C-alpha cells in the first residue's frame, strides 16, 4: 500500500497519549497489538462474534477487530494491561482468580473488560444481567459458571466498600 495514504491519529491508551501514523484499513486491534505491543486483546473469530478482542473505548466495550483504528481517533482506550493501574490486580481480576474463572485465559482479557464496563454502569447486576452483558464474549473452557460467580462477587465486595 502507498505509504502516503497513512493517516495520523491520536489515541489515549491506558492514560498515555500516542500519536500514530497508520493506514486507514488497519483495525484498532492490529494497532494495539502490533504498534503498541499491547497483546492482551486477542483475535479469535475476525467476525466480531467472540469478544476476545474487547477493549474499552471511552468506557464502553468495543470489538477492536471490527473497529478501524482511525475511527477511534481522539478516544480514550483501556486495554487489559491498563486496567489495574498501579495496583497488582484490579478487584475484578482478583475475583476471576479467586473463583477459578480462568482456564486457558485466551478470552479472559475481553471478559474482564466487559465485566468492568458492566459493573461501572450497573454495580449490582442480577445474574441475568451478567449473563446478558457477557453473552458476546465466548469462553470454551469454563462453561461460564465460575465467570458469573466471579463477576457477581465483585458486586458483593463493592457493597462491602470496594
Amino acid at each position, binding site marked *: *500500500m502507498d505509504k502516503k495514504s497513512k493517516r495520523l491519529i491520536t489515541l489515549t491508551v491506558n492514560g498515555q497519549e500516542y500519536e500514530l501514523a497508520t493506514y486507514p484499513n488497519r483495525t484498532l486491534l492490529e494497532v494495539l*497489538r502490533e504498534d503498541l*505491543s*499491547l*497483546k*492482551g*486483546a*486477542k*483475535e*479469535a*473469530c*475476525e*467476525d466480531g*462474534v*467472540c469478544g*476476545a478482542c474487547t477493549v474499552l473505548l471511552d468506557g464502553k466495550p468495543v470489538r477492536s477487530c471490527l473497529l478501524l483504528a482511525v475511527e477511534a481517533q481522539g478516544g480514550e482506550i483501556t*486495554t*487489559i*494491561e491498563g*486496567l*489495574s493501574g498501579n495496583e*497488582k*490486580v484490579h478487584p475484578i*481480576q482478583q475475583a*476471576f*482468580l*479467586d473463583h*477459578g474463572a*480462568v*482456564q*486457558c*485465559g*485466551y*478470552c*479472559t*482479557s475481553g471478559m*474482564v473488560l466487559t465485566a468492568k464496563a458492566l459493573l461501572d454502569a450497573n454495580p449490582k447486576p442480577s445474574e441475568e444481567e*451478567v*449473563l*446478558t452483558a*457477557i*453473552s*458476546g*464474549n*465466548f*469462553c*470454551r*473452557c*469454563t*462453561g*461460564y*459458571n*465460575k*465467570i*458469573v460467580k466471579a463477576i457477581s462477587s465483585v458486586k458483593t465486595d463493592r457493597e462491602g466498600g470496594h
Partner: protein
Amino acid sequence: MEKLSYVGKSVSRKDGPVKVSGRAEYTVDISLPGMLCGKVLRSPHPHARIVHIDTSKAERLRGVKAIVTAKDSLQIKHGFVQTGRYPADQYPIAVDRVRHVGEEIAGVAATDEWIADEALSLIEVEYELLPAVFDPEEAMKPDAPEIHPSHPKVMESFKNVGGKTETSWGDVEKAFSQSYLVREDRFVSHLRTHAYMEPQAIVASYDHSGKLNVWVSSMGTFLKRAKLANTLGLPFGNVRILKTYVGGAFGGKVDLFNHEYIASLLSMKCRLPVKIVYSREEVFKGARHGQPLIVELKTGVARDGTILGQQVRTINNSGGYRGSGVVIIFLAWGFLMAPYKIPNLKYEGYSVYTNSLVRCPQRGHGAPQMRFAVDSQLDMIAEQLQMDPLEIRLKNGRRPGDILPNKDSAKNFGLVQCLEEVTRRTGFVEKHRKAEEEKKNGSKIKRGVGIGVCSYFGGSLIYPNSSSVIVKLNDDGSVSLITGAVDLGQGAETVLSQIVAEEMSVPMEDIQVYAADTETTTMDIGSWISGLTWVTGNAAKKAAEEAMGKLLQVAAEKLDADINDLEAKNKEIFVKHAPDMKISYKDAIALSIQKNKGDTVIGIGHFRTMKDEPNHPSLATTKGRWTENYSSYAQVAEVEVDTETGVMKVLNVTTAHDCGFPINPMLVEGQIDGQVSMAQGHVLYEEVLEDKGAVINPSFLEYKIPCALDMVKTDYIDVITEEYKKGKHYDTKEVGEGYVAGTIAAVANALYNATGVRLNQTPFYPHKILEGLRQIEKKTTPKSRH
C-alpha cells in the same frame, strides 16, 4: 487422615496473575525480528492428482522470501499412529495427490500478509480430478473410488478400510438366545469441532547454527519435537520447542500438522522466522475436527435387566488419512466395556478413509459417541422391562475390584456410589416418574431428566507415556519445578506445584515452574491421554521426596536427631518433640553444599504407568493391559422442551464424579463445567457441515458455540475413592474428558423423558424434535374413517 496443607485445596492458579493481566504470551503473540508471514496453499478439490505446480510467478513477487512444495521436502510420511500395523500415511506436503479439500500443497513466506496471499494466488497448480467419496459406508463398498488400499489384514472385500479393531469374549449368540429381550439400534454421532479460542499457530525460526526454534500452540511439546524432527530429517537436539501459553486445545492440538512442518521448512529455506496463524475460517476449513461415529448396537438382557451379551459394530470416517481413526475404533471399545459388565461381547470397529478432512482426538475421543449409544439404548431396554433407569444401571454397573476383560482392575471403582449419590441429590427417580406422568398432559413446555455414565482410563499405556520431573532447591530455600508438562488451561502447573508444596512443606508462592521447553525441561508425554495429574504428578511427587530426603538427612545430622523424628513446615525442619531445635531450608542447603561435596539439593522423579507391561495394548485385538486407573461418573441432566418450537434447553447438569483424589477441587469443577457446556453445544446445535468435503459453515457466526445466555447450571458431588499420603505413591483418575459423554447421554435420555422423542442421531435440532413429536402424535391419534 493426614492433614494436608496444599493438596486437596482449591488454591488459585499459578498462572492466574499473568493471564488476568493480559501478559501471558501465547503463540499468536510471539514476534521476532525479521519475522515473515507464512501462508498455506490448499487443495480446492476433495480428490485429485497433482499434475504440475508452477511457483515461478509467485517467486518473482516482491516481498516473497520463500516458497516450498513437495520438491523441497524429504517426503517422509507422518501419522498420529505410527506402528508396524499402521505405518504413517500422510506426507507433510502433498506430493502427487490430494485426498481432501484443504490438503496442504505449498507454503509461502512473505514480508506481510497481503503479499503472502497474493503469492498464493500466483501459484499455478494443474489437477487431474479423481472421483471422491464422503460417506464412510459408501466408501466401504466395492465400487467406491479408492482413496488408499484397504489395510492388508482386513479380510473382507470392503474398500478404503484403514484399520480394524476386533475382539470378542464369551459366546454372544448363545447369550442372545438366552436373553429375555434383544434390541438392535443404530446411533450416529455427527462432525463437531473443538472450537479452541486460540487458532492453530506456530512460529518457526531456523538459526544459523542449524537449530530450529519453534513456538507452537500444542498439547505436548515433546511429541511435536519428535514428529517435526523426523519429517524434517533433523536430530532431535536440533529442534527446540519453547513454551508458550496455550489458548485451549480439547484434543485438537495433538499430533503434527502440516502447516507446522511447512512453517519450519520455510524458515529453514530462508533462514528467517516464519509465523503461521490460522484465521478462524482456516481452522474450520483446514484443521482437524472430531470424529463422527456410527455405532450399531445389539444388546441382550435377562428379565431382570442384566446385560447378557452385546454385539457392536462401529464405523469411523477418518477422512483422507488415518489420523486418529484407528485409535477411536479401539477406544470406543474401551468406553463400551468399562462401566457395565458385559459377560459376552463381539466387537468390530472399522476406520474408513473418505475424502473429508482428517480427524483427530476430541475431548473424550470415542466416549461421547459410544456412551450416547449404550446409555440411550439401556434406557429403552429399561422402559421395555418396566424398570427405572437407575435400577438397570445399578444392576449392571461394575463394582470395585471387578477385573475387566483386558485384565485391568476396576479397583476402587466409584460408579455405583456415583449413581446413588447423583440420583439422590437430584431426586432423579421421582422427577423421572413425574415427567412420565406429565408427558401426556396438555402443557406446551415439558421437562424431563436423564442419566448418563462414563468411565475413563487414566494415563493409558502408550509410548512414551512417562514423565520425568526435576525439583531444584534454590539457596534461599525456594523451589524450581522443572517439567515437560503443558498447561492448556486445565491447571497442570498448579496441581504439580501443589504436590511439590505438600511434599516439601514449601508455600505455593515459593515454587517457580519451568515447563514444556524441550531443551531445558524434562521429557513428558504431554497433556493428552488423560494422565497428567497421575503420571507427571507422581513423577513430581518422587522428585520432591528425593530432594526432601536430602534436606532431612542434612538436618538430622545437624540437629543430632533421628530422621524419623523430624518434621518440616514452611521451609524449616524441626524436631517433633522439641520444635526449638530447627534449621531453615536455606541453612540446610548451605550445609549440604559444605558437607556433601557441593550437592545443591536436586530431586529427580520418574513415573510410567504399569512398569512391567509392554508398550501398549493392541489396537487390532485390544489385547494387553491398558491402565491402572479408571475414573467413573454418573450425570443427571434436566431439560426443558418447547413442544411448539422443538427448542430444547439444558437447564442443569449434576455430576457425581470419582476422579480418585482431587488435588484441586476448584480445577476439577472447572473441567466438569467446561465439558458440560461443550456437550450441550455438541448435542444441541454444533455441527461442522460439509458439502463434497468442503466445510460450508466456517465461522462462529455459522457454527454456534454456547454463549453465556446458554449457560447450564452445574452441581457436583465428589466421590473420593483414593487417598493422598505424603511420601507415598498415589492414585488419581481422569477428570478432563469423559464428562462430555455422560452429559450427551443424559440429555438424550432427558429429551425422551420429557417428550417421548427418542433421537438416535446427534445433534438434536429443533426440527428433529418436532418431527419426533409429530410421529408420536400420528401413532396416538386414532385414524378417523370417512
